[in-house]
């Protein structure tokens, strides 16, 4: 039998039982739609986490000293005082894949302006920091390396600080605030960045020249950490390796010895954060696949009923010359048509549901080509798998008995 004729025969018999065909299809429609919607939700949250991670900056590497230990008592990570500005200089000179580099010290300070006060973190960094973290200045400008050399009492503040000390929409540029009683001139205001992946407000901070914070506020000689950026995303691992080698040599550590610092890259952090949402996606997709499986069982059930009900038809077809595999193909194509059309409708419904979720619950969703292809292939595989047994049952009928069947 020609494929065209097989299709015609299958479509004719599906049309004879419109309601039944539709209800069987509904199982697949709902199954595919839920797979699409669930994956869209999972992917959406993954994307939004990735977007948040990218607010850290571009191609960022963080370099922390190891925990210090005094007489066997180990202190917290980053508490070692071995990292100095010499390390910064050596990295700057020797690591070709590093684009920007800054030392970093952090303290917290009580900010006072007029009768208002606010407590927040104060970071001491080089101007490179703004390039590494992609921090834009909306008003004023960044302090310079000269300010650092002279330990100038200037600072750049985030929007949250502006709101709390000066009120909304104020422009405090050029004003002086006191940080731990030291007067600082405000030279710049950063663009609003919002929360980071861990829910921290990235606009709630003060950024001042490195030596100002190190010498005037903390009165220390070492640096707490370094922040670097690689020249491109692909160079992140190379930069990490270069820094490791240079710093180990600087600290007189042999190649086999463990480094006395740790490097964390943006890729590491992104992987960590997205693995959670990947697990969620898998979980949701698995649950949705179960409904697709139930839809498949529905197809099998209906096809079995259909074979029994149409025994006489099968007998007639065999008497006029249908071979076993013609009958098999006819029933298989019917099952396939149900699952394929159901799959297509399910993709449409899944798209609509995802958009509704995005609109009504304002949850980020993202429908990927992969999820569409996957559920389409999966639903046709289900049609094949669950259509096979009933089709084979039909093909094996004895024509004489089938013709006698009441």
């Amino acid at each position: 039998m020609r494929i065209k004729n097989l299709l015609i025969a299958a479509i004719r018999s599906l049309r004879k039982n419109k309601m039944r065909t539709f209800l069987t299809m509904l199982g697949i429609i709902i199954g595919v739609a839920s797979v699409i919607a669930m994956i869209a939700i999972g992917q959406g949250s993954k994307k939004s986490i990735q977007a948040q991670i990218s607010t850290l900056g571009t191609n960022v590497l963080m370099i922390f000293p190891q925990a210090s230990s005094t007489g066997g008592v180990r202190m917290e990570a980053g508490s070692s005082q071995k990292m100095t500005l010499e390390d910064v200089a050596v990295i700057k000179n020797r690591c070709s894949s590093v684009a920007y580099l800054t030392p970093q010290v952090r303290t917290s300070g009580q900010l006072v302006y007029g009768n208002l006060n606010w407590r927040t973190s104060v970071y001491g960094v080089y101007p490179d920091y703004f390039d590494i973290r992609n921090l834009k200045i909306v008003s004023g400008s960044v302090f310079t390396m000269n300010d650092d050399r002279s330990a100038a009492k200037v600072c750049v503040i985030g929007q949250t600080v502006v709101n709390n000390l000066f009120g909304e929409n104020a422009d405090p540029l050029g004003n002086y605030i006191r940080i731990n009683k030291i007067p600082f001139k405000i030279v710049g205001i950063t663009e609003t960045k919002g929360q980071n992946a861990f829910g921290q407000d990235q606009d709630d901070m003060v950024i001042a020249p490195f030596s100002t914070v190190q010498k005037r506020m903390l009165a220390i000689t070492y640096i707490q950490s370094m922040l670097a950026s690689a020249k491109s995303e692909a160079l992140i691992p190379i930069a990490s390796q270069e820094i490791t080698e240079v710093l180990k040599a600087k600290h007189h550590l042999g190649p086999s010895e463990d480094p006395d610092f740790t490097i964390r890259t943006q890729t590491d952090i992104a992987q960590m954060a997205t693995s959670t949402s990947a697990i969620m996606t898998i979980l949701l997709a698995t649950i949705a696949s179960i409904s697709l499986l139930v839809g498949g069982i529905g197809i099998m059930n209906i096809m079995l009923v259909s074979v029994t009900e149409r025994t006489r038809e099968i007998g007639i077809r065999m008497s006029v010359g249908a071979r076993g595999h013609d009958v098999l193909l006819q029933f298989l194509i019917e099952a396939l048509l149900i699952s394929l059309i159901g799959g297509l409708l399910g993709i449409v419904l899944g798209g609509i549901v995802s958009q509704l979720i995005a609109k009504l619950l304002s949850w980020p969703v993202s429908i990927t080509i992969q999820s569409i292809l996957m559920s389409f292939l999966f639903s046709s595989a289900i049609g094949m798998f669950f259509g096979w047994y009933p089709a084979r049952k039909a093909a094996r009928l004895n024509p004489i008995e089938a013709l006698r069947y009441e």
Partner: protein
Amino acid sequence: MDHQNHQVTEEDVEMSKPIISVKNLVKNYVMGDVEVHALRGIDLDIQQGDFVAIMGKSGSGKSTFMNILGCLDVPTRGHYLLDNVDVLTLTKDQLANLRNRKIGFVFQSFNLLSRTTALENVELPLMYNKKISSKEMQDLSIKALESVGLSSRSYHFPNQLSGGEQQRVAIARSLVNQPVVILADEPTGNLDTRTSLEVMDIFQRLNEQGITIVIVTHEADIASFTKRNVSFRDGKIIRAIEIDHPRNAREELMQMPVNVDEEEL
């Protein structure tokens, strides 16, 4: 005109080799623990253009014989040549192809596909023939429906047709593939006298065109329209007679009072 046609068919009979040749055909089945001897050695030749009635009570083996002739069943022993093909050597798929190309079936209960138009029902055998295009399929089916006088009912569903019309659709289906033989199992069993006559009239006309027809019936009345009657009893042929002057269904139809409405019961 009748006479001329008659002569032509008689000549054909003498010239041709048998279209169906059955020798020492035996069929046994096992029903539970009992072995049933349905056919106990049948010998029968049917010539091209013949019109044979196979008669007998139920259990005489005539239906088993019909199933074997129609390649729906295979005999336990014996020989069966259909149009010079040794049926016993064929596989299941080859038997299906043989049914598709060389045999047309007409059943007592019509066996049309429900909720499928008359035309689509007639197309059915051609759907299983890869050599036939959709255009040919439609042309041949329309022609077959015309030859049973039902072209105006092409798009009616079986439940919109009377019993006689349904059987005529079934006949159109049986001849659409231009078979070497039409096998009819009690074709008038579910019909009243008048529609039975109409069906026999169609068979006689098809036979006049040279189509070989074998019908199974238990009504001697129906058998008297054929050219040869073969009687079965207990799996054997007990009598085979030539009918010199078969009754003419068309003439009898014309003599029938027309006021008997074709009520659709």
